[in-house]
């Protein structure tokens, strides 16, 4: 092995160089992701710091009015945050029960043939672009709801929240179903052998065993709802306010960023910089939710 001839030695040398270069190229590809994170943090913080040079952080996070485009200017981000939260709550109220119910149905009740038809259909829900959902919310759902709530304005939190909920159903359903399928059949059989009925097995055995995966799916859904842009931009309105009434129009963080991006705020102005300060807030919120989700998944995950 050590006494190979010079031709082999030369070939080995070029081979070694080539292997080295290839490994470095592949490593560079992997590092792009680290660079992305650093770039996101860099861009957000750089501009946000410029913003907070002119607007106090305390005011930003505690004041209750957001009017950067009117005089007098107020920079309290709470209405935007609350708008996001309100729509998210409505969306979850739809997605959690329906998603979980669908998951239980597919995992515990549906025969295999039905599953193979229904599951891809649910996946289609996930593949529809959000701008289409926004259209649906504005042109179908809102007029429909106005029949029941005549005082509802065209732009409102309820329509956006309901439609967003439908969009998120596949996320909850798919991940919860995966978690439930991972529960060993022997658990179920033990319960059936004691005379339990199917719904009791599902609710008392399967769901608790799969809980960490199910909760993780909820948290992922929250994160998705917080970051969603098109549905709220089209259907929820552009009037930031702190209200408990879902029939009113509000504005979410994402909706505001859309609005200002489409507007004519001059580059470098304070109004322009609000993109980044609201962006930072949005980023931090989703980051915290994602981290909580990862923590929950790790802490309560049991290997079967």
């Amino acid at each position, binding site marked *: 092995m050590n006494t190979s001839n010079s031709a082999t030695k030369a070939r080995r040398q070029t081979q070694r160089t080539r292997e080295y270069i290839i490994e470095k190229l*592949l*490593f560079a590809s992997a590092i792009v992701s680290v660079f992305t994170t650093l*770039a996101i943090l860099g861009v957000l913080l750089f501009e946000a710091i410029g913003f907070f040079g002119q607007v106090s952080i305390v005011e930003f996070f505690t004041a209750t009015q957001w009017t950067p485009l009117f005089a007098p200017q107020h920079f309290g981000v709470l209405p935007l945050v609350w708008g996001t939260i309100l729509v998210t709550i409505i969306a979850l109220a739809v997605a959690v029960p*329906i998603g979980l119910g669908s998951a239980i149905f597919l995992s515990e009740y549906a025969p295999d043939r039905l599953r193979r038809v229904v599951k891809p259909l*649910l996946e289609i*829900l996930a593949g529809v672009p959000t701008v289409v959902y926004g259209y*649906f919310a504005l042109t179908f759902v809102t007029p429909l709801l106005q029949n029941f709530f005549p005082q509802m304005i065209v732009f409102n939190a309820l329509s956006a929240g309901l439609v967003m909920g439908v969009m998120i159903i596949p996320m909850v359903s798919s991940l919860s179903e995966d978690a439930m399928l991972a529960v060993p059949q022997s658990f179920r059989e033990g319960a059936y052998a004691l005379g339990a009925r199917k719904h009791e097995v599902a609710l008392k055995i399967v769901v608790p065993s799969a809980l960490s995966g199910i909760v993780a799916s909820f948290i992922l859904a929250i994160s998705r709802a917080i970051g969603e842009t098109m549905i709220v931009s089209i259907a929820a309105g552009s009037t930031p306010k702190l209200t408990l009434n879902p029939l009113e129009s509000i504005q979410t963080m994402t909706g505001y960023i859309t609005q200002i991006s489409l507007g004519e705020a001059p580059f470098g102005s304070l109004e322009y910089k609000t993109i980044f300060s609201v962006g930072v807030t949005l980023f931090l919120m989703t980051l915290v939710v994602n981290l909580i989700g990862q923590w929950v998944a790790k802490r309560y995950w049991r290997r079967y």
Partner: protein
Amino acid sequence: MVTKPSRKRDTSRKIEGGMFYALCLVGILISLVSLATLLFDAFQDGLPWLDVQFLTSFPSRFPGQAGILAALFGSIWVVGLTAILSFPIGVGAALYLEEYAPQNWLTSFIRLNIANLAGVPSIVYGILGLGLFVEALALGRSILAGALTMTLLILPVIIITSQEAIRSVPRAYREGAYALGATRWQVTRGIVLPQAFPGMLTGTILSLSRAIGEAAPMIAIAALVYVRFVPTGPLDRFTVMPIQIFNWVNLPQSEFRGLAAAGIIVLLVVLLGMNSIAIFIRNRYQKRAR
């Protein structure tokens, strides 16, 4: 001491079970009915406006003359460029993580990082694109800036799906190749890549089909909303189909609603085409693998 155990009567448990099943069924039905309604609504509103003139015109103040041509080409440009950029980087990163990376803190950090990036809202990527590509790198509001932004957006998902494709290559193949005296790249290129390639391709096409429906990041880098030309190069300004649809939806005249719906139909058809190609590839190559 005799205590009578309190038990739900059998019939009430039966009723409970029936109601629960009904509730779950209702849940599925609501999902499916919503999907059907959504699609039916869009098609009903949009079909009257869908004609050759719609496909070959630029947007206009007059609904009768407006069309989706500019946005269609803009989407094709952006997604095409994104594909060229994201596929090699995504596959390269996945290969590194699965075949080359040592087990150390840096590797764990990279993996964690990718998982977190997958959960960042798409509009934040748009803000990144605005600050980095449009401003700092002075690419302006060009197709190139848009494609770079989209690349960063879908890269985490491409990496994750490619990793899965690589992991599905059985260890026995690699061992056989190493035992013959193959170097790591020879094993990667000769054995792993060919086997994993269809899965990687499928994952990439599915990611690109999601990218084509994304409006938020393109809005944030301020792609134009009113574009009356077909782009001819990567440094041109542009718009994409979802933004055009968004614009039409927000206009007050009701005719523009119909245009928006027609745009939605075009978008959905393109999506259907891309997804079908991806599924076709996956099915065709799943038969051969073992």
